């Protein structure tokens, strides 16, 4: 009987092979028994239908066999997931708005209808991306989260020594900190990446001469475009770091190690980009010199600026790492 097979399939389809076979065999025997015991005057088909309806929704029966419900994102993380999702989507929408606003300044003959359409499609695809990536990250967390399962199992053997140490204010992370960082990072990167994709020529120095606008690009556009995926990687890593902080809400060992690792990676990636000589428009200093006139050594000054950018960037990030080492490793050890 096809209905019976279809019902059994619906119950067992998500089980591993061995279990599947056993459940199939047993369920089939039980269903046949139930049909046989039905002594009413119904014909066979009607009996089958009654029995299957009595067994009820195959998904629920499957959950009963499993003994637990399955989740894409379970109740442990769901609230947190919603919070992060709202922040990320809001930040992406904000970032895209600013990016398009800036872009419209660099577009001659603004066509409101076109910009409006581009705005809507960008917002839509940006929000979808934000949704997809956030969800994927959480699905991975959910799948790998043995911590929650271990904790649940260990709940029985509890003693006083397992009480958590009262959080020290210095090692705590106020929720506002990672949220502000996520919003700032997302706005900055969506503006930056937005311009990078739609109007990379906008990264330039502008002079007005005799009513004419002169634009001197800072970067070599071809090389700059080649780094697009790097910037996106740096962006996602930075967001991931804040999400981890948002989850732990204190500088414990795990959070500290994650953060140090991510800062190290993003710093190295950024340094590779910044110190790539071909990235910078090689004609830039000469062109500027032409515009400003006078005996000022602009090329030397420009090289200094570039070196200072690198130096400040390194100092800020190394400082960040040192502060995490202090809070997350040194202070935590001392408090214990």
């Amino acid at each position, binding site marked *: 009987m096809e209905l019976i097979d279809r019902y059994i399939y619906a119950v067992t389809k998500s089980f591993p092979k061995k279990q599947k076979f056993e*459940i199939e*065999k*047993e*369920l089939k*025997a*039980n269903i*046949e*028994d*139930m049909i046989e*015991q039905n002594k009413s005057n119904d014909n066979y088909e009607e009996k089958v239908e009654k029995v299957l309806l*009595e*067994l*009820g*929704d195959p998904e*629920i*029966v499957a959950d*009963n*066999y499993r*003994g637990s419900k399955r989740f894409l994102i379970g109740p442990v993380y769901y609230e947190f997931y919603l919070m992060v999702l709202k922040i990320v989507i809001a930040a992406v929408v904000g970032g895209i708005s600013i990016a398009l606003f800036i872009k419209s300044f660099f577009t001659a003959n603004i066509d409101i209808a076109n910009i409006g359409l581009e705005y809507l499609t960008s917002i839509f695809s940006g929000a979808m991306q934000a949704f997809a990536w956030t969800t994927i990250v959480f699905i991975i967390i959910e799948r790998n989260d043995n911590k929650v399962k271990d904790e649940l199992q260990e709940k029985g053997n509890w003693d006083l020594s397992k009480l958590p140490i009262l959080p020290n204010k210095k090692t705590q992370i106020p929720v506002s900190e990672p949220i502000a960082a996520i919003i700032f990072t997302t706005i900055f990167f969506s503006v930056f990446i937005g311009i990078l994709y739609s109007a990379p020529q906008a990264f330039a120095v502008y002079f007005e001469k005799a009513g004419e606008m002169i634009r001197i690009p800072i970067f070599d556009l071809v090389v700059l475009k080649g780094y697009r995926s790097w910037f996106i990687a740096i962006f996602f890593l930075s967001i991931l770091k804040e999400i981890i902080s948002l989850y732990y809400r204190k500088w414990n060992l795990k959070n500290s190690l994650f953060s140090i690792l991510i800062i190290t990676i993003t710093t190295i990636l950024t340094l590779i980009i910044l110190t790539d000589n071909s990235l910078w428009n090689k004609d830039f200093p000469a062109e500027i010199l032409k515009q400003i006139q006078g005996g000022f050594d602009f090329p030397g000054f420009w090289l200094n600026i570039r070196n200072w950018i690198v130096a400040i960037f390194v100092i800020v990030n190394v400082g960040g790492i040192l502060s995490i080492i202090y809070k997350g490793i040194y202070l935590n050890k001392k408090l214990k």
Partner: protein
Amino acid sequence: MNEENIQIVYNNLLQELRRGNIILSVLSQLLEPQYGYSLVVLLEEKGISIEPGTLYPLLRRLEKQDILESNWDTDSSKPRKYYSLSIAGKQIYKNLCTEWFKMVVSMENIIKDKE
């Protein structure tokens, strides 16, 4: 709360109350081997109604916990999986029964006090 909501809440609580007793009622009938459907009928006769869609998976889970043991009877025309209490299961069942009787006494006292 309106009538309808009262009914919904009541049904949920009643279901929860019954759910707690399902395992004990199932174990009580498995001193002798039973297969899935015969157990449904047996419990029904004794006034405990349990949905087959709940019972069959429950038997399997109890077997996994080694409270029940099972045997495929392939002699008769149709193969059937018979379940009965394991040695550990019998001990657990006995202890649960002791608790049950204590609980009945306590509950009765508590409820009668308020009446």
